[in-house]
């Protein structure tokens, strides 16, 4: 099976504007930055969370805490592949108690990653609320999970692959979608 050359659905400018909008939406919904905490889900959710934190800080003039939440140990599909390498979970010193935690991920698909993230959060502390921000929602939910903030809704077929590239990791900012051809 190979992938055909992808078509770009979000370029650098689109990505930047989407993130700016999400930052404003988070602040609007929560009536400011008070009590907010962003948690990025590795890999690319971490960079997105960092960028959102900077954007929010520029808008509100307030530094908000950012952390990383590795969900590997709470996945429901662990036995299907060799034991995965863990990525450090870094919770800001303020902790999660009573905070409004905004989970940040690049793509929302089946919803299982977010389910695992909710379980992981549950073992660390008790936030006041958990909200979800994603860059792309590509549909095909397998669990009753929905995002509060979406960069772009992207209807896809199961034969397609969505790839998010970010400057910090991949060298440029873009989102591409490509066909997976059947062998």
């Amino acid at each position, binding site marked *: 099976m190979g992938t055909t050359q992808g078509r770009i659905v979000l370029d650098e400018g689109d990505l930047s504007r989407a993130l700016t909008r999400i930052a404003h939406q988070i602040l609007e919904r929560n009536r400011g930055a008070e009590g907010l905490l962003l948690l990025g889900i*590795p890999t690319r959710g971490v960079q997105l969370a960092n960028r959102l934190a900077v954007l929010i800080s520029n808008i509100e003039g307030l530094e908000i805490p950012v952390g990383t939440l590795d969900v590997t140990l709470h996945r429901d599909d662990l036995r299907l592949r*060799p034991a995965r390498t863990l990525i450090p979970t870094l919770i800001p010193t303020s902790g999660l108690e009573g905070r409004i935690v905004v989970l940040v991920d690049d793509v929302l698909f089946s919803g299982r990653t977010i389910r695992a993230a909710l379980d992981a959060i*549950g073992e660390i502390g008790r936030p006041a609320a958990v909200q979800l921000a994603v860059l792309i929602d590509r549909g095909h939910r397998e669990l009753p999970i929905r995002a509060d903030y979406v960069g772009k809704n992207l209807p896809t077929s199961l034969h397609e692959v969505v790839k998010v590239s970010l400057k910090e990791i991949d060298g440029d900012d873009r989102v591409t979608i490509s066909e997976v051809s059947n062998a």
Partner: protein
Amino acid sequence: MHRHLLSAADLSLEDTLLILDTAEEMSRVADAPVRKLPTLRGRTVVNLFFEDSTRTRISFEAAAKRLSADVINFSAKGSSVSKGESLKDTALTLEAMGADAVVIRHSASGAPHRLAHAGWLHGSVLNAGDGTHEHPTQALLDAFTMRRHLRKGKGDLAGVQVAIVGDVLHSRVARSNVILLATLGASVTLVAPATLLPVGVDKWPCSISYDLDSVIGKVDVVMALRVQLERMSAAYFPSAREYSRRFGLESTRLARLREGAIVMHPGPMNRGLEISAEAADGLRSVIVEQVANGVSVRMAVLYLLLGGAQLADIEYKTLVEA
């Protein structure tokens, strides 16, 4: 990694770093409000301890339970084993009970090897100490401890100078440590009277010294090994006093340790023989921490052996830092 953990010699540098890095993550669980992960739910881990060892057994038990595995404890005393049931029959019973992993401590060197390769069990075998052969998770927790204090909890131990002092001949902890520390790039010096060093030790990846005083000021870690008084009657050394004088870690030697050097001991200690109370309880001692680290390291090993499908092909990835 592999299906079993029988010897430190089975672990490559990549394997070792993976275990240590995973253990760092696992150690967070100890401070979390809910000290539990669902990862090994439904797996059965059997602690098969033919030798008394409350400390190691509890450590493995805690590690398995924190990962939500079911734990069954089987200790030799008062069981069918003490009535002469063989290792093989014990293994077959555990297999029938569906053990996914067997953590075994045995007085016979090589017993875990037999358990792993004789075809009696399908699950993973974890060596928790076999005779005078090896104790790989002890070496892993020792390396983890050294790494935290000397390398900020990251990377390998290249350039770290370690002295291991005591009854090397009968020590499985020494053997595993020599192997694992060499893998991690540390330099090891074994310090002991010649009677307590095995024939063939000159081929090991370490140096030898009979003189602790010439070594003590040059190391970042001094690890004291337990010396058993029974060795005196077998003429390994003439008296406890002479041993202590020549090889004991006491206050004058403690004072000569360099800046930042740490004192370690696998336990249980003979206070006053191989290590003074001052050294054991002082500021440089990380002995209590070793015990806590043992749980994290054993959680990492259990996760890597049982948490996925097969471990042979994990690539070591550079960890992302936020």
